[in-house]
């Protein structure tokens, strides 16, 4: 530990609890598992840590078909075959190591400084992948079979793992991580987030938009509730009209609902409610 601690970055509004868990996880050298509704800033947090600690960020976007080896390294046989046939590269064909390319975890291990390793949406992969990956992250080393070489982490990366899943990950997995759940921000917090994203915006627009936003989130029967990202885009859309009067928002006169609701049923539902109220 170089004694660095994390206190928040310019574009990310951090609550004190979260900052503390990040710090403790860094000190204990344990991965931090972040769960929360989409749009609560799980991925953004890794960016923020990177920014405030001045460490480079490596992102592993987990896909359902992904094999662990892809996250570690890849042996580029195709290039080697090509080189052996046409021989127009400077690489030494007999040196297999020249054809080993590091995956994201591999890159974090061989980096010459401490990095932030973001493993995004771990829930997409199957349980075996998750457990095997934590084995690697536990031991901080893996083998490259092709060249019989062990890669050890030079600097233990700060590991942030995100998950959207409502269901829990496996017990061995959870046992090795610290856990934090990012609750959806309350209106006060949201106001801060909006201020960070729109410095110098008129106060009444922010207030009214946030108020309308939380009201819309409460609607019954909405399948995909709008999140922070949608609110920011919505405000951006509202701002395009310089003559827009923020008071309209209080009268349920809500333009650009399509920015907030992306499922057609949700959109219809929201439109219906907004029109119905508008008449009274």
């Amino acid at each position, binding site marked *: 530990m170089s004694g660095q601690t994390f206190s928040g970055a310019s574009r990310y509004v951090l609550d*004190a609890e979260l900052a*503390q*868990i990040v710090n*403790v996880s860094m000190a*204990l050298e344990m991965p931090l598992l972040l769960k929360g509704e989409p749009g609560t800033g799980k991925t953004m947090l890794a960016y923020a840590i990177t920014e405030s600690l001045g460490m480079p960020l490596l992102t592993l976007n987990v896909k359902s078909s992904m094999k662990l080896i892809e996250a570690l390294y890849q042996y580029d046989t195709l290039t080697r075959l090509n080189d052996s046939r046409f021989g127009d590269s400077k690489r030494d064909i007999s040196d297999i190591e020249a054809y080993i390319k590091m995956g994201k975890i591999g890159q974090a291990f061989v980096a010459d400084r401490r990095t932030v390793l973001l493993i995004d949406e771990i829930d997409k992969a199957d349980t075996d992948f998750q457990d095997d990956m934590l084995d690697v992250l536990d031991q901080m080393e893996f083998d490259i079979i092709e060249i019989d070489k062990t890669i050890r982490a030079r600097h233990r990366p700060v590991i942030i793992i995100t998950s959207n899943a*409502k269901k829990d990950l496996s017990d061995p997995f959870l046992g090795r991580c610290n*856990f934090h759940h990012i*609750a959806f921000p309350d209106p006060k917090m949201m106001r801060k987030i909006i201020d960070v994203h729109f410095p110098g915006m008129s106060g009444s627009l922010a207030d009214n938009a946030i108020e309308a936003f939380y009201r819309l989130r409460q609607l019954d029967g909405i399948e995909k509730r709008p999140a922070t990202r949608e609110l920011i885009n919505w405000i951006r859309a509202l701002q395009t009209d310089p003559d827009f009067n923020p008071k309209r928002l209080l009268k349920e006169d809500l333009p650009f609902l399509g920015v907030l609701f992306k499922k057609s049923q949700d959109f219809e539902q929201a439109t219906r409610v907004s029109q119905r109220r508008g008449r009274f």
Partner: protein
Amino acid sequence: MCHSAGGAFRDNDMFIDFFYQLRDHGVPVSPTAFLTLHKALARGLVNSLEDFYTVSRGILVKSERYFDLYDQVFAHFFEGAVLPEAEGLAIDEMARTMLEQWLQNPKELADALGIDENALKRFTPEELIEYFKERLKDQTERHDGGNRWIGTGGTSPVGHSGHHPGGMRVGGESRNHSAVKVAMERRYKDYSLEGPLNPSMIGEALKRLRHLRPAGPKDKVNVDKSIYQTMKNAGEIEIVFDSSLKDRLKVILAIDNGGWSMDPYIPVVQTLFDYSRAQFKEVKTFFFHNTIYETVWADASRYKKPTTLNELARRDPDTRLILIGDASMAPYELMSQDGSIYITDRSGRPSIACLHFLAKTFRKSVWLNPVQKARWPYTRTIGTIGQIFPMFELTIDGLEKAVAHLTAA
């Protein structure tokens, strides 16, 4: 807490107490996580009760579904009302749990204790327990030496005589509430286990049922196998083809949609139904009232499209059968040879025989019951049907168990 002398060791006791309170209230905290928490405390990462609230939750509690319980236990515990507990017993109990975990995963425990896995293997169970107790005492002594686990400026806000930590705020964090107040707000109530089953949870649970299998013509090159075979042939190229993966899982959903007894559960069943249609390629839905006789219906009004059980039995026996119903009815409906409340349904075979027939035809079947499990013993037919089909509660937990049952080989 009213311990004035030997406060340090009492502190230790108190953490064990806290750990046990969490366990007793159903928060699944593991001894390994508890030791990790000790590590954090020993390193001085925790300097106030607020810190303790956040850090111990981050380390001990691994799902937001238990955050609410954690909050409740925390508030109860640090309000000052602490249940007395014999200290020796607490440690023994703790050690026993740890032992169980050690048997399951020696490496994890070795890491947590900071000793070599092989060294750990040489311990007898008794030795391990002793070692563990020694370790706890170590921690205590270190605590005595001035490195306080909890507390700033010389007073330990936790477990000090007569001190009431509930209202305390330590440290410069600009939070408006004390940890106990935060805990008492119960911000995580919505995430707790008893919460309603919402669409995304159902989707999540059902997703696990999907599984891909090779099917159709072998038209896809298997690169790995091709390379392997080619190498085996010493360079003579051999290309191996596979069928591509397809989701071939077939599901039959049979829903009890009749009668007032199922009415309260319509929304949740509806959601389940919608999601299973979205999840599976091949899902057939049928309806019945209370229980199944010779016929089920493909239309919700149970009128237009009858399907006999024999027709149903001609389907792939690997089809997963999911029945949803409260399984609550008059016993004769199930047992009597002409128990059906519909005269046209009376075939001479009692419903219970039909159910047995279905269970035998489709080896992988479950019955999902929206009635709370605690109330099952009060209805006789629930018990009877539960003997025929594995029955699960229609909650997120029950659904996960049902899915696990359906996917098991």
